[in-house]
């Protein structure tokens, strides 16, 4: 057997006559007459931005894969990608500046029979954010997120009993302190035999095999993680402190501002009202149980605010961070 390319694609040219090596393969991948590479890459970006590629079988552009919904668009994206000098940033910019991308994602009744799976993209799709970003969002809204860039991986808190699962208990996880503790999820050290449950709960691939598409599950373990895991509880505490230290003339205004920070839009009256109810429920409880209040606040004590009041807002903050809309790109 000699090295060669796929017969359906233009042949690989060797730098040396009669010999083909990996550099020849690399050059062929990005050569001007190879249409496959840029289309596949553009399709992957499309998937990230729309929830499905133009070719839905992202890992298979062959005869057993699906046909593209918009073939000319895919071809154009492919040529454009090369024309932009293979810049991911410019490619993403091109896509998100399009009218197609900027459509609303509400389901449209009239499309139900015509295009039930939204292949033709007459609307956008609602996408739950990826695993790493779930925590990033909570840290961002609470003001804890570290913006440090690059460098070695870090170790956010890992629940007990996880590290010990790996290699007969010989794997040690030392939680990072300070800024590194709050770096973006993409910097979390990934141990395949003891992956971080906060990531795997939200469909982070286990890294044992290449994953081109992530699943998007919706499970009670996710609910429990976001409500009770220490990372998210801490974010709730810090978020409550942030909310209380804002200028606000009323509870209503404060609630609206908190929700606006989470969901990126003005909440409607009936939404804010439910949170104000929750706030009142919390206040009633914590005025009668100040010790519990102190426990719930943790080390995030807002200035000049009594513990019961602060605790009621932690309950509100925690609930806001658990809204479906908060972890969804609409």
């Amino acid at each position, binding site marked *: 057997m000699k090295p060669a390319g796929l017969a359906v694609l233009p042949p690989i040219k060797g730098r040396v006559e009669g010999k083909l090596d990996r550099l020849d393969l690399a050059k062929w991948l990005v050569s001007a007459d190879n249409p496959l590479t840029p289309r596949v890459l553009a399709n992957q970006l499309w998937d990230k931005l729309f929830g499905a590629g133009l070719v839905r079988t992202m890992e298979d552009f062959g005869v057993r894969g699906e046909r593209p919904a918009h073939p000319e668009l895919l071809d154009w994206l492919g040529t454009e990608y090369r024309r932009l000098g293979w810049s991911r940033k410019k490619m993403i910019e091109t896509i998100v500046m399009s009218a197609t991308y900027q459509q609303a994602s509400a389901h449209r009744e009239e499309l139900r029979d015509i295009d039930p799976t939204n292949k033709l993209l007459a609307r956008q799709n609602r996408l739950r954010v990826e695993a790493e970003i779930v925590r990033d969002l909570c840290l961002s809204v609470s003001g804890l997120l570290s913006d440090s860039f690059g460098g070695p991986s870090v170790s956010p808190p890992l*629940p007990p009993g996880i590290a010990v699962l790996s290699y007969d*208990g010989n794997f040690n996880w030392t939680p990072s302190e300070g800024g590194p503790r709050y770096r973006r999820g993409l910097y979390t050290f990934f141990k395949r035999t003891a992956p971080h449950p906060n990531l795997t709960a939200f469909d982070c691939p286990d890294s044992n095999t290449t994953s*081109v*598409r*992530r699943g998007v599950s919706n499970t*009670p373990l996710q609910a429990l993680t976001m409500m009770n895991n220490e990372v998210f509880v801490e974010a709730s505490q810090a978020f409550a402190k942030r909310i209380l230290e804002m200028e606000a003339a009323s509870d209503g205004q404060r609630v609206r501002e908190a929700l606006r920070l989470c969901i990126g839009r003005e909440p409607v009256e009936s939404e804010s009202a439910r949170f104000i109810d929750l706030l009142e429920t919390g206040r009633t409880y914590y005025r009668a149980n100040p010790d519990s209040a102190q426990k719930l606040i943790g080390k995030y004590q807002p200035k000049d605010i009594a513990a019961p009041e602060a605790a009621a807002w932690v309950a509100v903050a925690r609930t806001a961070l658990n809204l*479906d*809309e908060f972890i969804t790109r609409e």
Partner: protein
Amino acid sequence: MKHRRDFDFQAKMALNRRSFLNTAASGLGGIALASLLKQDGLLAAPVQAPNPLATRPPHFLGKAKNCIFLFMEGAPSQLDLFTPKPKLKELHGQRLPESMTKNVRFAFIKETATILGSNQTFRKHGQCGMEFSDLLPNLATCADDLLMIRSLHSEQFNHHPGQLLMQCGRAAFGLPTIGSWLSYGLGSPSQDLPGYVVLNSGVGSSGGASLWQSGFLPTTHAGVLFRDQGEPVLNLVNPEGLPPELQRASLDTLRDVNQQRLDVMRDPEIASRIASYELAYRMQSAAPELADFSGESKATLEAYGIDRPDPPVGGRGKAKSGNTAQGYARNCLLARRLVERGVRFVNIL
């Protein structure tokens, strides 16, 4: 290859979101199995949220309803426990013949290796005459109730690949584990607990989490790790200082506000999320009850050896994190309780 978002499912579900919520007590929905569930009449009648863990009838009705897998990695060799090898005993102390070592890859065996036969005594037991070594006197008394499969063999010579072979059928990553297949194929009767539970004993295994992954099946079929100490399930317990009534009030708020968004966006994933939070709430009540053995009879506790003093353990087995016989006994009783409550498959690692 991971499953993708199932837009076919979303399309069907978008139709009848109100009944979705009213009837979906336990639906987890929104996961790419709808096309396989093939629920007829989905378009017409009030919709039951497709629950990917819902039980479905198998092709052949069997008697077994649940499975508890005691995967005792690191146990003594079957040559000392189950499988008498008279020829091996005969050749004890001799060098391996060249026919066996030529062109064969071994991890640790050197060319100068000699054959090691077991010095355990094997006897036949029960009416069926099943053979056990004298190291298993109690198990031997169950000979007539057991099915011994002696044809299982492995070509792996190291821990992790061997574990993957046993859990996935091939010594390779990316495949579903046994519990995932059962969950996928048969669903699970329990409404409050996952269908595939993993209990970890002692120092764990080399394979760790790769031994209960769902591989290319949807992640809803991955094993859920339960613990016999502390929180039964990770993140089960509300933060300190948050009482149950405030948890319920928070969930009510979530449900109502999520529902309002559902009315606007009509995305069935929102309904799934509402259902997931309700199931999480039910797990919060159901799971602690699991680990509470106070209702079990003294006879049961003794039979499982819950309070039996630990035998002395040496070497790597020594307690790194509770590697005790009591810990294992607790896991066995927990497994039984899980199965009694409708969990389809429990793996005790």
